[in-house]
């Protein structure tokens, strides 16, 4: 028990250091491309870390988290577009290119949208929950597709990356460091949630919701809070992703994206603190290196996923650190 715990801590620290060291070195050697690759990994890991709260701790297989990823992205894109045209943004409020404000808008929007989606979806479970979350995300996807004011299916460019006080976000490395800090904060929050009373109730509801009701805790309430927090973290990742690509389009809202987030978590290890990070690393590196060799790289991804599901349920981190244990 102690040994596997220590192994996981070492594995986590190694992953965290690698993800920091590679872009630092790449930047020093004048290879900004690898900084951007690491930023992509970091943002996808952040999005998946959000989903990991619902999926990993709560056992809630949301197949609609792209909705929050995309909403976060559109929050950044729409505000940047208005600021670029020097127009007010909403209710006469000035638009801004300040990332902290944009992030706040993205997070709050996702929380407000996740509340009714969660409240309705969580009345169901199993495959119905999966389908209903998918249905909500698809509705938002089609809405974005057919709303010409913000680009419709062509998407919306962000001509100049949004700003952060005291940081030159136009440079790859400072922008990476911002994303990396956000990821670390999200992981710290995940860790804190998992070990807290709330986390105990949430994880117990995943294991046996009858037991949780019988001690007097309503599983629905606990799950709803988890779903909303989860959506807010994924929404923040969406805002960063839009700024990374300087572009946001309905593809961020599509069900492929929802599936990709689930795949990242399964690859890395469901419910593991660094599962989303390990999964995002593997995914993006496969995409980059195999994707350069063959267009059919997803075939290899499929095989790896198959192997994980059949032989290594704990994902990459499970293989390194062994089975997860609870106190």
């Amino acid at each position: 028990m102690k040994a596997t715990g220590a192994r996981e801590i070492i594995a986590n620290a190694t992953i965290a250091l690698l993800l920091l060291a590679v872009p630092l070195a790449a930047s020093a050697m004048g290879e900004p491309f690898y900084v951007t690759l690491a930023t992509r990994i970091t943002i996808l890991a952040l999005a998946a870390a959000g989903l990991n709260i619902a999926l990993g701790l709560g056992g809630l297989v949301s197949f609609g988290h792209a909705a929050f990823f995309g909403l976060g992205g559109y929050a950044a894109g729409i505000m940047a577009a208005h600021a670029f045209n020097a127009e007010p943004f909403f209710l006469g409020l000035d638009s801004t290119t300040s990332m902290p404000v944009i992030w706040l808008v993205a997070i709050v929007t996702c929380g407000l949208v996740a509340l009714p989606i969660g409240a309705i979806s969580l009345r169901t479970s199993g495959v119905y929950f999966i389908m209903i979350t998918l249905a909500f995300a698809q509705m938002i996807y089609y809405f974005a597709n057919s709303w010409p004011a913000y680009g419709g299916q062509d998407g919306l460019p962000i001509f100049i990356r949004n700003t952060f006080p005291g940081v030159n976000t136009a440079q790859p490395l400072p922008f990476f460091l911002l994303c990396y800090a956000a990821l670390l904060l999200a992981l710290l929050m995940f860790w804190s949630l998992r070990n807290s009373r709330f986390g105990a109730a949430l994880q117990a509801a995943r294991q046996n919701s009858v037991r949780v009701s019988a001690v007097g805790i309503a599983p629905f309430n606990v799950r709803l809070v988890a779903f909303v927090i989860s959506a807010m973290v994924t929404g923040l990742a969406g805002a960063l992703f839009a700024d990374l690509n300087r572009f946001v389009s309905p593809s961020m809202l599509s069900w492929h994206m929802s599936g990709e987030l689930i795949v990242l978590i399964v690859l890395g290890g469901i419910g593991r603190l660094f599962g989303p990070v390990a999964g995002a690393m593997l995914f993006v590196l496969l995409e980059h290196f195999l994707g350069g060799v063959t267009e059919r790289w997803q075939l290899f991804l499929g095989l790896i996923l198959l192997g994980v599901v059949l032989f290594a349920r704990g994902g990459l981190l499970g293989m390194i650190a062994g089975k997860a244990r609870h106190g």
Partner: protein
Amino acid sequence: MAEPVLTIRELEKSFGALKATDGVSIDLMPGEIHALIGPNGAGKSTLIHQVSGSIKPDRGTIHFLGQDMAGLDVAARARFGLARSFQTSSLAQEFSALRNVMLAVQAKQGSSLRVFRPVMRDRSLIEPALAILERVGLAGRAHVPAAELSHGERRQLEIAIALALEPKAFLLDEPMAGMGPEGSKVLTGFLDDLRHEAPILLVEHDMDAVFALADRISVLVYGRIIASGTVEEIRNDPEVRRAYLGDAA
């Protein structure tokens, strides 16, 4: 006379054509163990489910501490002071015995939305939970995941969780099932003391335990109470002997 803690009146529940509960009325008095016996399929578990709130009765009323339970869900009834154990153990399987009990302690404290302090460093959860595990004889197994406990230990853990809720009444559905004679004896002694903390509605097949413990016994057959009385009255009731006890009693 004291007021009953729990009052069940004219309860009815059908599953399709099957009447699982057919006009049942039962009282649970303070300080008593009221045993509910009857053959398999008589509707004992169905009755417990209706009292705890997981099955909705078709007709009839359930009052607990003077309050109508209709419209309260399982969690609300548990917070109100009704603690149940399950005929088939129902535990958070990945959690240790300790964490299963800590969950109940936390529920009792009403603090399940706290997101900061790690539970495994929270003495206000750990200490009461350990004390309860000690009481049911599971202290040595505190850190073993529920899934790895033996059948008997899981039954003990069910009782520990119910205790942690400090309820106003216990609903125990066959707590001795599959425990073996030694375990049953220990648990019998334990329940004997427990009635002073809160009255117990006890569903049990082990007749030695029932006769040793019960202040009153109600006999349920095909969803109906066919007899209700003291141990002596039930032992000597000809209809009960025919319908249920056979010649064993």
